[in-house]
């Protein structure tokens, strides 16, 4: 036995390579849960605060570690994937091939619903992906339970339906119709007629804020609080009519795409746009946001799809060759684009930008109106002119749902409870801002650290010296006169001085106050007689 014991001890000392790998993996996961860097405690002078914050940071670290471990070990399901061997390409795999390989439950998610009379169809899913709302252009509204493919309610409003949107759960939905938009209950009863907004082109619901945002035909953006019906904001965008509107789920900012190629971002508390980006030379046809809020995809009519980094407002990638009528990001970051009768899914598998992942050609003549990934499922919903379809896109959805965030298996009791909690946690419209992590943080002091006068002067000296010591190029005959050279040099020095305008101005202002007569010289002639004479 002793031999064995020794052996055991020996084995304890060696850390298996397997374990090291796990450590590395866990560390990477931890980073996600730490939500950014910890506070810099070194600069703190208050010892008590320092220890308090240090212990809190430690707690954050611990909880991040626990969460990472939970993610590693305890999550019940793993993400879907599509792997090919050898020369096979993922985008060559057809839905029929997939159908053969997947289990029955998944293959049930491949279908086409052909409704040729009332299309094209717009789609919307609830946050849990359990329910789908389809709105046909010619007035057909259908609410479907996706779990058991049950048609809950189907109504015909007998007028144009431009867009549909679920409110906070499957109990209510809004439809933008010919003249007004309406809110319906799950059983198809009309609850409200929203007359204030005019003929609405696009409707979006901001979940955390309970705001129903809409843009109407004359380019006005409206925010209405659905809890008490107040119009929170009505903004004239002044960019003309548009039907490209999307909400950034990360911060609740609404983006509009305009015919001039600009994308503007709005919040309800200001009349001016937060951001105005010139994304395309021609009209913007679609906008979509990555769920983490850092990526935006836009499509222009000039057959380009661009992906933008919203932290720097910089273009990350341009995909040439097609324009998308509709774009949609999945929870795992796949980008679906619908053009004509063709749906393409782009994926960022290698980290080097989005590239082809899967494609799905519809029957010729079908016009794709809207693509939307079903949350928590590997399913892409496609609304088109002949009804709607659903295809499998492995690896698009988040495999593990959180019962308290969005539960596809929610019971009615849980739903009611959830509704109350949602209302309790309802955010005021002021919380919509570009960087929502600023909420609850300290505002940095307004006062900038101004360099002292001496420092500015020293800097100026250096700049002037540098300007003086610039070697002049030898120019051709006639242009190399000493007078011209000195003039040029003087100019350089002047320019160097000009970069420190504050100092100059201050000097002048000081002089002015002392002398007082220059002020008279600057007055308009009609007022000169009132200037003080001395």
């Amino acid at each position, binding site marked *: 036995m002793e031999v064995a014991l020794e052996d055991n001890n020996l*084995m304890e000392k060696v850390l298996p*390579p*397997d374990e090291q790998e796990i450590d590395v993996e866990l560390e990477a996961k931890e980073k996600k849960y730490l939500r950014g860097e910890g506070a810099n405690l070194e600069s703190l002078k208050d010892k008590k605060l320092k220890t308090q914050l240090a212990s809190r940071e430690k707690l954050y670290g611990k909880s991040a570690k626990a969460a990472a471990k939970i993610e590693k070990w305890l999550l019940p399901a793993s*993400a879907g994937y599509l792997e090919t061997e050898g020369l096979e390409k993922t985008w060559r795999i057809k839905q029929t091939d997939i159908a053969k390989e997947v289990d029955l439950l998944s293959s049930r998610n491949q279908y086409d619903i052909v409704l040729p009379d009332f299309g094209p169809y717009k789609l919307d899913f609830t946050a849990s992906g359990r329910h789908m709302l389809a709105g046909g252009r010619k007035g057909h509204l259908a609410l479907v339970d996706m779990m058991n493919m049950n048609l809950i309610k189907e109504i015909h409003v007998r007028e144009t339906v431009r867009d549909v949107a679920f409110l906070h759960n499957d109990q209510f939905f809004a439809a933008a119709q010919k003249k007004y938009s309406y809110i319906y209950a799950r059983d198809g009863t009309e609850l409200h007629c929203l007359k204030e907004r005019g003929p609405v082109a696009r409707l979006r619901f901001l979940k955390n804020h309970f705001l129903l945002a809409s843009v109407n035909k004359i380019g006005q953006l409206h925010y209405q609080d659905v809890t008490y019906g107040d119009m929170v904001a009505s903004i004239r965008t002044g960019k003309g009519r548009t039907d490209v509107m999307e909400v950034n789920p990360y911060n609740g900012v609404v983006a509009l795409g305009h015919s001039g190629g600009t994308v503007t971002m709005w919040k309800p508390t200001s009349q001016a746009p937060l951001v105005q980006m010139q994304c395309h030379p021609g009209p913007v046809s679609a906008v979509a946001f990555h*769920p983490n809020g850092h990526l935006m995809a836009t499509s222009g009519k000039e057959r380009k799809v661009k992906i933008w980094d919203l932290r720097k407002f910089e273009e990350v990638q341009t995909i040439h060759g097609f324009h998308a009528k509709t774009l949609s990001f999945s929870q795992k970051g796949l980008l679906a684009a619908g053009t004509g009768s063709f749906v393409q899914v782009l994926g960022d598998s290698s980290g080097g930008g989005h590239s082809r992942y899967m494609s799905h050609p519809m029957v010729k003549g079908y016009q794709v109106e809207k693509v939307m990934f079903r949350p928590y499922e590997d399913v892409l919903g496609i609304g088109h002119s002949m009804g709607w379809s659903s295809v499998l896109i492995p690896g698009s959805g988040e495999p593990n749902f*959180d019962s308290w965030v969005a539960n596809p298996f929610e019971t009615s009791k849980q739903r009611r409870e959830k509704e109350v909690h949602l209302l309790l946690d309802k*955010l005021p419209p002021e919380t919509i801002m570009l960087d929502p*992590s600023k909420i609850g943080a300290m505002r940095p002091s307004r006062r900038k650290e101004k360099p002292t006068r001496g420092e500015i002067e020293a800097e100026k000296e250096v700049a002037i010296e540098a300007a003086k010591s610039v070697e002049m190029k030898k120019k051709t005959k006639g242009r190399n006169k000493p007078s011209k050279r000195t003039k040029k040099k003087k100019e350089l020095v002047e320019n160097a001085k000009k970069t420190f305008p504050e100092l100059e101005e201050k000097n002048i202002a000081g002089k002015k106050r002392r002398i007082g007569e220059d002020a008279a010289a600057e007055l308009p002639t009609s007022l000169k007689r009132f200037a003080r004479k001395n």
Partner: protein
Amino acid sequence: MQTYTKVFLCGTWGQYYPVTFCISSTYFRFKRHVFSSQCLFPSRGEIVSSWTNSLVVIYWFIAPVWDLDQIFDESSFSLIGESITSLIVEYHLRTNRTWMFCVVGVFPWLVRHDSLLSPISSSKESLVLWNKRRNLKPPWLWGLIWTSYSFKNLIWTIVSSLRQGDWVTSLLDNRRKDGLVMRRHVVEDDEIATKHVISCSGSVWNGQRCNRWIVPPDLLSDEWCWITMDDSQTQDHIRPRTTTIENVSESVYSAIELGSIVLLFLYHHVQLKNVFVVCFYSAHLKQHKSKLHHLSKTSQSLGIKTISRSVDEFTRERSQDLQRVFHNFDPSLRPMEKAVEYQRALTAAKLEKIFARPFVGAMDGHRDGISCMAKNPNYLKGIFSASMDGDIRLWDIATRRTVCQFPGHQGAVRGLTVSTDGNVLVSCGTDCNVRLWSVPRPSLEDSDLSSEKSTEVPSAVYTCKNALLAVDHQFEGDLFATAGAQLDIWNHNRSQPVQSFTSGSHSVISVRFNPGEPDILATSSGDNHISIYDIRMSSAARKILMRTKTNSIAWNPMEPMNFTAANEDGNCYSFDGRKNEEAKCVHKDHVSAVMDIDFSPTGREFVTGSYDRSVRIFPYNGGHSREIYHTKRMQRVFCVKYSSDATYVISGSDDTNLRLWKAKASEQLGVILPREQKKHEYNEAVKNRYKHLPEIKRIVRHRHLPKPIYKAKAESRAMNDAKRRKDERRKAHSAPGTVVTESHRTRRIIKEVE
């Protein structure tokens, strides 16, 4: 967190030992009828778990007993049951639920040929394991199984280490007398693969749930078999990706050589799906050894997995079950979480204000102002109070009624204290008497006590020369001290003081024994002194001279070197008893003299009662009060006490009433469900996180003050500001260093006398 996994392992072994294991998080049991008929004796159940990224290892050991007369033992049921639960616990904690590795070892041969023989001893490691089965730390390296059993002269040990690439299994046995023989075999990972022989789920096995595995009864009669099963949560489609059988480990063969049967349950994750592998090795496997090697692997070309959730997996089975809850802590699922959290903090702060109802009730009965109170250290519900007319009462806090009345003193009672054992009540008053009362025992039927107001007679009366102003009992001793013209130390049994201390012409106002050192006490006297005495010495050990009188002193029960003095100037001063030249903290908020002070038993807070008709609660290290309690009817507060469970505060005031307050104004009293408790904790945490933000700070800090206090505060603030301004100006206009601003902590202290 609960994951609801059901693993049904049903093994039928020949004709004789049907063994059924049901492992489930909701319930577990051995099918009783099976056991009772076959009389299996599960002697050892071992759970050996490994923390590798892929496997939990369960070692299950069963020795059958052939004696048919033996009745199955209940304790072994529970033993097994417990081990199963612990299996589930570990299973939850450590692994992704799709990973499991299970070894089942059965040793019939030993039983058959060496008569009835169960393992005599198992090695130390497994014993440790058994004892610490709820301990979460595995006592060995991750990925290593170490089990050993001895049968008479045989030690059977399997050392298996599971790593990515290899699976090393060693067998030690001392069957031969020449010592231990170790055999080691390395198996490549892909060698441990599966063979899809029978699908035991769903479609094949009459619509059972696929996570229920049933081993066909003819399996073991076939001598060996491999089964793979699918756990992809779908009933209908089982497509194992690889189909291979290789030799798993030599240990198995060695075990076979011994004549034993080893059942191996492997839960192996292959690329496509989770496949459950059950490997049966029987004793007669030898001749089939070669067969094992022949099976080769095949694989399919396309690797696809999609999310598919069967409703059964995610919903409860029966309406009595709890709803299943799944968590995913990914921040990207919760956009704007910080804003939401801030909103919750705001709501929590508002709710706290709404639920702030601190006043529980008043206890009236005295006919004059309450002068002093005493807690019964031995009985939570009892509190003694005494009034200016000489009446002493014992109250029951729960019913808020007088339980017992003591005839008391001729004049005002000024001091009241209870011995640490809670048997003797000592009172003193202006009639120069010290009276000792025996405290009535609290009976089980409280209603009896409260209905009949019993009156007691003093067990002893001691008289001294001067009026007495305070009394306090020693902790864990039978001495008590009275304060009057002098400080007297008394014994319960003597009519004369044991010891007396005199200092100056002024009387001693208050006295308090140190809770840590029984011989040390602190007093305050009319000549503005705070003195610390050691009763083993003849004079005061230390004295602090302050500008104003100290009305009462309380020692911090958790840090017994620190005490807090309630001063006439409306402030409380916390001192370190060892370092008296400056106060550790000045607690300001009262606008009039602080009359009494009492520490919470937690030592983190203290309560003060003041002449300004309010009661305040201060943190022990905070400059300002956290709470103010007042009512329109409450007059000058003369005495306050913190209840011994730190949940209530009792104040006695001039209006002849005792008042009962909650220590935390918005605390929910009564039984709190765990979920409520969690919610309260969460609210507290978010409030604490955002407490520095102006909106929340304002709500949390705001207290309504009665008009006189509000005005007095404003006035004193104006005065203080003016004074500070004046001092600043004086300082600015005098030569540097001539005017020294004294800190608040030393301003009111004149000097410290050794």
